[in-house]
């Protein structure tokens, strides 16, 4: 009897669970402050800096890192790379949770979150790129939800409903790629309206294309990165097939990421040339821009190539993590570091600890939801009663 209690206690109070529990409690506390005292009490936002990390990280980074869903399902179902099939479900799940959390985070950031349906129901501001982002994110969240449902339906044993959803796979995949192309690029296009505020090295008429291409890089890298984390912590939930194909997946996606990163490097240089911004490279912002371009674009492209050439899965995994960090750096640069570059440092933005607290809380909520679902539903293994689709 006493042994049993000890065992249960051990399984619940793991270091991960304790840390996650503290973060969740802190998150709930900040949530209460945010919704009773307002944005002023919880953020360092100001009239000059209306967007902080709740947009720069939770929205911009969140959406980019959730791109694995459309990238993987397009690779498998449209481009016919069926050997990566085992990666589809975890990628769709990550995408679905990612977008759900982005929408959750928006509720913290906007002044009157209960009005979030207004752009669609009350007053449609179709000249705004934010309208397009909102419409596409709302639609894509629904698409991801439907794409995700086969797993819970198998878990619950609803065979007929599952059969209907599986038949929609192709249509949903194509719809998902269209919506992702549109809103991933539109998140970058949001900044097109402010050429006087974003540093010329980061402002470019190509910024929507940059955002779309980096979302592909983010998607590919996240699938590799998240795959290695799952293998480490959820290996017992993986079936033979999943474990067998994971190295092949890292090689294939690593090769694709190397190619796309190389193309992205090229179009970034073309962007500088097109606006003749070379002289800015000699400034402090220029140095930081070069760190981003060489440290987080050229370097991972090279490391991916090397990893694929030498069959070095370890290197590919580390490169994937580094590339994900690079995406964060890029989005932070555009939304915060290089934004308002013309203002004196006293008028610049640095996040309040409560803002960071909410962002960490939301990432933790995502991890907990991912683990909850993976330990229960057929995500990392195939359900024996069903044919793979």
């Amino acid at each position: 009897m006493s042994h049993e209690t000890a065992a249960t206690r051990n399984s619940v109070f793991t270091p991960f669970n304790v840390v996650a529990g503290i973060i969740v409690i802190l998150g709930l506390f900040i949530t209460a402050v945010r919704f009773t005292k307002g944005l002023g009490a919880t953020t360092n936002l100001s009239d000059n800096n209306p967007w902080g990390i709740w947009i720069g990280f939770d929205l911009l980074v969140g959406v980019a890192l959730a791109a694995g869903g459309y990238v993987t399902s397009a690779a498998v179902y449209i481009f016919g790379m069926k050997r990566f099939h085992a990666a589809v479900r975890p990628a769709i799940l990550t995408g679905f949770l990612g977008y759900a959390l982005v929408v959750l985070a928006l509720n913290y950031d906007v002044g009157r979150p209960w009005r979030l349906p207004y752009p669609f129901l009350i007053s449609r501001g179709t000249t705004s790129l934010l309208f397009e982002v909102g419409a596409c994110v709302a639609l894509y969240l629904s698409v991801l939800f439907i794409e995700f449902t086969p797993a819970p339906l198998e878990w619950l044993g609803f065979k007929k409903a599952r059969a209907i959803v599986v038949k929609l796979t192709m249509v949903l995949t194509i719809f998902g790629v269209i919506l992702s192309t549109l809103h991933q690029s539109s998140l970058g296009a949001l900044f097109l309206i402010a050429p006087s505020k974003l540093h010329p090295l980061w402002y470019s008429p190509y910024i929507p294309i940059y955002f779309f291409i980096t979302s592909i890089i983010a998607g590919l890298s996240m699938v590799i990165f998240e795959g290695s984390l799952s293998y480490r912590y959820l290996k017992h939930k993986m079936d033979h097939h999943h474990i067998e194909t994971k190295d092949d997946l890292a090689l294939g996606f690593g090769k694709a990421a190397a190619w796309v990163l190389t193309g992205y490097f090229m179009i970034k240089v073309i962007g500088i040339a097109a606006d003749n911004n070379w002289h800015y490279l000699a400034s402090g912002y220029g140095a930081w821009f070069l760190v981003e371009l060489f440290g987080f674009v050229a370097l991972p492209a090279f490391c991916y190539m090397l990893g694929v050439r030498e069959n070095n899965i370890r290197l590919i995994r580390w490169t994937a993590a580094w590339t994900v960090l690079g995406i964060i750096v890029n989005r932070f640069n555009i939304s915060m570091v290089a934004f308002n570059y013309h203002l004196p440092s006293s008028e610049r933005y640095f996040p309040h600890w409560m803002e960071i607290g909410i962002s960490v809380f939301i990432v933790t909520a995502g991890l907990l939801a991912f683990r909850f679902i993976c330990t229960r539903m057929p995500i990392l293994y195939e359900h024996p009663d069903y044919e793979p689709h």
Partner: protein
Amino acid sequence: MSISRRKFLGWMGAAGMAGAAGTSAQAGSNKQFKGYPDSMGVLHDITRCVGCRKCEAACNKVNKLPSPDVSFDELTVLEQKRRTDAQSHTVVNQFQTDKDGAPSMVYVKKQCNHCLEPACASACFVKAFTKNPDGSVTYNAHVCVGCRYCMIACPFEIPAYEYNEAFTPRVMKCTMCHPRLQEGKLPGCVQACPTEALVFGKRKELIHVARERIRNFPDRYIDHIYGEHEMGGTNWLYLSGVSFSSTGMREDLGNTPAGKLTSGALGSVPIVAGLWPVLLTGIYAINRRKEKIAAKQQADAVNQAVSKANEEADAKIKAAMEKAAADKTAAIEREVKKALEQDAKARQEAQKAAREQSGDEGSDEDKT
């Protein structure tokens, strides 16, 4: 009915031309909105401003904004550079400049410039901003979600937000006293200005007035009307004796109206929505066909291999059968031969026995 390819293409071309001619496309045209005719505006002559903050006080009063901690009569406030915020729709800033070598103070009033094509209105995803025919740009708090994209978009850094309101935060900005204009009154700040540094009138006429002043006093003014073309033009116009950048106003904004900056990206949306299904379904179909062909080729190869193997096996069996048949005949022949031999031998022996039985002479004869 059958149509030739040429005819079909001709029809398609005609349909395309008709479609292009029949509509007035906005996104790709050269059309520019030059403002509502007879819209009103204010000309701010920076050279006439003395920094008395009377306009700030009047603005605060007519807009029923909370009274500030420091009175509007306190001019030391000017020592710090300020911007519009949730409590003030307008602020006056002072700048030290040296015109013709002599250091002097200039005072500049800052408020919403009421763009002809406002960035805030273009950026708002609930159409909370309206460009009114009287020239003012007004805000509707009843639909505002509070995303603050208008504040990102505004090149003049004007809209402010009530961050400390937990439940009903609003974007705050100058309305050019739109409600007062409708009552036939002047904007509060214009009415309060003791030096006529602010002049209210039709924008078109104000531009004439400004040009006249520059022509009459070329030493007093620099030859530029700020707001005539900046960001596509604004209803608030400025005259200055020193460069505008030395009075905290940006001269690098360009003349492109904000809406034009995003129209390309917005215009590509229907193109992506229209072409992506074709492209993606095409890629899918190509892959399906490749798979089909590969499967067929594989099946063919297997069939070929099988039939070849079958033929070989048939030949082998045939050979074996033939061999077996040959062996069999040989065995039969051998057996027959053996039987015949045995038979002959038996017969011989029988004959021999018969001869032995018939007489010894006979046998002797045989031996010789």
